[in-house]
Each structure stands twice: as structure tokens, then as C-alpha cells.
């Protein structure tokens, strides 16, 4: 799943460890989220969104991801 965590984190001049400390996870989790290898839980996504002052919808590109998911089902 696409997300804009890296974009917002770099804009906020935070390191991955800084963000990890703020949202109570390991820095490895932040790395995986930024690479799109791991999808965060609702609570973690909300925590990160709060840190950056944006909505979960924007941070996790929910509209875009939903469109892509729908497309996968339509292409079946």
C-alpha cells in the first residue's frame, strides 16, 4: 500500500528513529512502512497522522489505494 510517510517525515526534518520514538514503535517498522512492505495498524496510522498534523486518509493515500484495489478486482 502506498503512503506518504517518508514525504511528511522528511518535510518535518525528522529521522526515522525520531518518528519511531514519537509513535512508540521500532525504527525498523517505520522503514518497512516507508518502503510499502508493511501496512500500519489503524492506531499507528492515526498516531503518525497526528504527529504530522494531517488526516490518516491523506497520509495513507486511502483514496488512491482504494482505486487501485478496486481496479484489481475489476480486472479479474
Amino acid at each position: 500500500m502506498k503512503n506518504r510517510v517518508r514525504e511528511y517525515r522528511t518535510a518535518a526534518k525528522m529521522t526515522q528513529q525520531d518518528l519511531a520514538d514519537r509513535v512508540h514503535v521500532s525504527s525498523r517498522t517505520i522503514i518497512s512502512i516507508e518502503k510499502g512492505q508493511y501496512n500500519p495498524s489503524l492506531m499507528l496510522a492515526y498516531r503518525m497522522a497526528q504527529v504530522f498534523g494531517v488526516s490518516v486518509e491523506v497520509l495513507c493515500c486511502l483514496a488512491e489505494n482504494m482505486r487501485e484495489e478496486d481496479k484489481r478486482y475489476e480486472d479479474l
Partner: protein
Amino acid sequence: MKIYNKKGMVWGVFWTVLGALRLVLLVTHPEEQVFQSIKGFVFGIVLLTIGLSGFTRAFSRRATREDLIRENDERNKLVKLKTKARVNDVMFCVMVMLLAGGVIGYYQTDNIAWAFLAFAPILQMIVYVWSSIFVSIYYEHRE
């Protein structure tokens, strides 16, 4: 001094005592072979280090927070679950192969030893199937 991680402290004490006991035993009942003594000494030191580290970390707020994050990290939990699931799949395959090997070997050679090779996997597979049925029923109702 405040204890932030009681569980960590208990484990720290446990490993420290175990390591210390190993070292004390090495002194009171020395091994005959030098290699065994060295192995025992290294083992004792490792246990003592793990124990003392766990013990001291229990009194540190920062270390306890790090331990808590590592323990409750959602990705770590997922990795652990996936690892267990994959290991389970591998073990099941091994059981099936042992079972097949045992049955084929028995029919080919008529040697009872092959049947015994198949016997343990059969028991394990019965337990596996029944426990997976009950566990899945449990989680179907709970989750």
C-alpha cells in the same frame, strides 16, 4: 530506585543466579577436560552477562521503554507470527515426508523399524489435525 520492569528483573535474577551457579560449580567440581572447562566458563559468563544486563535494565526507565517497544511492536509481532506459521508448514512437510518414507520403507523391506519411523509422524499428525480444528474454532468465535 524504582523497578520499571518487574518481569525483566525476575528474568535477570534468574539468569544471573544460573550463570553464577555454573561458575561456582566449575570451581567446586572442576571438569576433567580443559575444553569442557572453557565451554562451561564461557557459558557461565554469557549467562551472567545476560542476567546482569536484564537486571540493570529493569531499573532504567529508558531501557524499559525500549524493551516495551520491542516487545509490543506490531511489525515484530507480525514477523513472529509469520515465522511460526512458516516453521509450522515446514514441520508439517517434514512429518509427511517421514510418514511416507516410513510406509514405503516398511512395504519395501518388511522391516518393522520403518513402521516405527512412520509411527511418530502419524501420532503428531493426528494431534496436529485435531488441535488445528479446535484452535480454528476458538479463533473463529473470538476474532
